[in-house]
């Protein structure tokens, strides 16, 4: 066996480790080992590549690896759990950027060589370059929006769709020119710049609430760009790993879309969540009266309830209140109250995000209930405690056909005997629409920072 054969064999082992790793990610008990297995596979792939005959100097590889590796490690260690979604976006963007740069370099070398570039190579290069660029710039904008460096509301230019379509058409035409024998490095560079603008344009127009779906979609994009790089280099581990990510990312994107009852096309082109005009005049059944209470009043309601369901939302995450919430739950449980958590599929900012935050606070995952499991129990619930959640408990999704969120599955908190809503202010949620739940006569609001409110409730329950 030649040296290249051995490397190919090592790649086969890496690909297997990636697949086994993903498989193990499907259960909480084995997930961590699955991730580590995939990391071992990655180390293997990188080491094997260093032995490749085409690698003749190591200096610059080391420079890049040290800078990038250190930045990644520090970023990943320092990031708060609430900021994870944007961190994933950032790393995803870098992956896309890497694929695009590799494509550009490969193109540069290919046009230097005599003869025409084979069709397979040029098509793969163009795909990696364009999709990688879109993923890079799109991910950076998604990062900016989630980090709130850029406005979370959709920024649309007049004729938004026409501009997007035109940019896309220009990219396609340029690719066609490049693919049909016109060899020009500057032209590919221009194509990539337009692809970068296309990525910015597309994601700027999407509201902050839809960013998880966008990140998931861009994750799939980067996967496909990686697979395409594999076609350029005839490298099976890139094809397999990239395709795995492309397939899983697409599936995950559909799942998230389904949870919000929106198609991917609707997310990308809908410019939803403008936060501007209210979607139809929302007047509560009681004529729009909002009732707010003190922590002491509400603590009594909680302390003497039999069944309490806690509905955590992004507000809880922002306020870092997960530990306080667990303390409150512990205090209630000690009094004999049955406490459970109702987790909406898109609670927080990504599916499963809330589970991670609560797990961080040592809430056992047996207490966390998914929407479909707990929805039938709301009529038998004494108090629903909504902490920093809004759109996922908005009854408009069920009974206001004109509402932008109409049809989105929501938690039926309004069916419980009483509802307590902890919220910073009467501002609308991420989707930018009013919530009639707050005007329901069964609802009592407690305004303020979620962490302080929960702490006040805990103290009051202790003395109740």
């Amino acid at each position, binding site marked *: 066996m030649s040296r290249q054969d051995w490397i190919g064999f090592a790649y086969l082992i890496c690909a297997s480790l990636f697949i086994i790793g993903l498989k193990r990610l499907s259960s909480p008990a084995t*997930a961590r080992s699955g991730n580590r297995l995939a990391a071992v596979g990655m180390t293997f792939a990188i080491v094997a590549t260093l032995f490749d005959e085409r690698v003749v100097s190591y200096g*610059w590889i080391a420079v890049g690896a040290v800078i990038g590796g250190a930045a990644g490690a520090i970023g990943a260690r320092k990031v708060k759990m609430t900021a994870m979604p944007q961190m994933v976006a950032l790393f995803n963007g870098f992956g896309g950027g890497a694929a695009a740069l590799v494509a550009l370099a490969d193109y540069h070398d290919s046009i230097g060589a005599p003869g025409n570039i084979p069709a397979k190579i040029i098509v793969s290069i163009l795909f990696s370059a364009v999709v990688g660029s879109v993923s890079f710039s799109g991910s950076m904008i998604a990062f900016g929006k989630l980090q709130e460096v850029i406005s979370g509301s959709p920024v649309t230019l007049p004729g938004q769709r026409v501009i997007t379509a035109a940019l896309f058409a220009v990219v396609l035409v340029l690719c066609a020119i490049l693919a049909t024998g016109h060899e020009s490095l500057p032209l590919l560079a221009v194509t990539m710049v337009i692809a970068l603008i296309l990525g910015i344009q597309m994601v700027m127009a999407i509201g902050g609430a839809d960013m998880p779906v966008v990140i998931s979609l861009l994750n799939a994009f980067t996967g496909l760009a990686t697979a395409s790089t594999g076609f350029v280099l005839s490298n099976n581990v890139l094809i397999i790993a*990239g395709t795995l990510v492309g*397939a899983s990312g697409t599936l995950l994107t559909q799942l998230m879309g389904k949870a919000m009852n929106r198609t991917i096309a609707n997310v990308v082109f809908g410019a939803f969540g403008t936060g501007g005009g209210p979607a139809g005049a929302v007047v509560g059944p009681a004529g729009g009266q909002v009732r707010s209470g003190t922590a002491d009043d509400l603590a009594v309601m909680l302390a003497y309830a039999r069944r309490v369901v806690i509905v955590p939302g992004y507000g809880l995450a922002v306020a870092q209140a997960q530990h306080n919430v667990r303390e409150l739950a512990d205090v209630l449980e000690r009094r004999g109250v049955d406490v459970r958590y109702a987790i909406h599929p898109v609670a927080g900012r990504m599916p499963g995000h809330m589970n991670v935050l609560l797990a961080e606070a040592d809430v056992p995952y047996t207490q966390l209930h998914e929407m479909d499991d707990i929805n039938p129990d709301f009529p038998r619930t004494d108090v629903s405690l909504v902490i920093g959640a809004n759109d996922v408990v908005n009854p408009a999704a069920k009974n206001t056909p004109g509402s932008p969120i109409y049809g989105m599955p929501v938690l039926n908190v309004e069916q419980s005997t009483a509802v307590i809503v902890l919220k910073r202010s009467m501002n609308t949620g991420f989707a930018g629409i009013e919530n009639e739940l707050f005007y329901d006569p069964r609802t009592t609001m407690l305004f303020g920072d979620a962490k302080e409110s929960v702490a006040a409730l805990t103290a009051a329950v202790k003395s109740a």
Partner: protein
Amino acid sequence: MSESLLIELTVFVLAAFVGIEVISKVPTTLHTPLMSGTNAIHGVVIVGAILVAGADRGPLTTVLGTVAVAFGASNVVGGFVVTDRMLEMFKKRPSEREPADE
């Protein structure tokens, strides 16, 4: 169509089926770590970046390759570390675990 392209397309299609098959069984709870984990895996594009950066084919290629290696490395390292941090959180309450150990 060349034989190698045919083999690569076969690998591509089979990998797509494996990806869908493996992923479709993941519970909602693990979607975020899954997204993060797959995000780390596509960092394998660093392999392509290493081949470019180490090939010694002129300054432009080396510069592009080096930046690509840096991007890829941050994707790989950051991706796996963030995922590990998330998954570290998934544990049962210690009091529940202890009796099971006895």
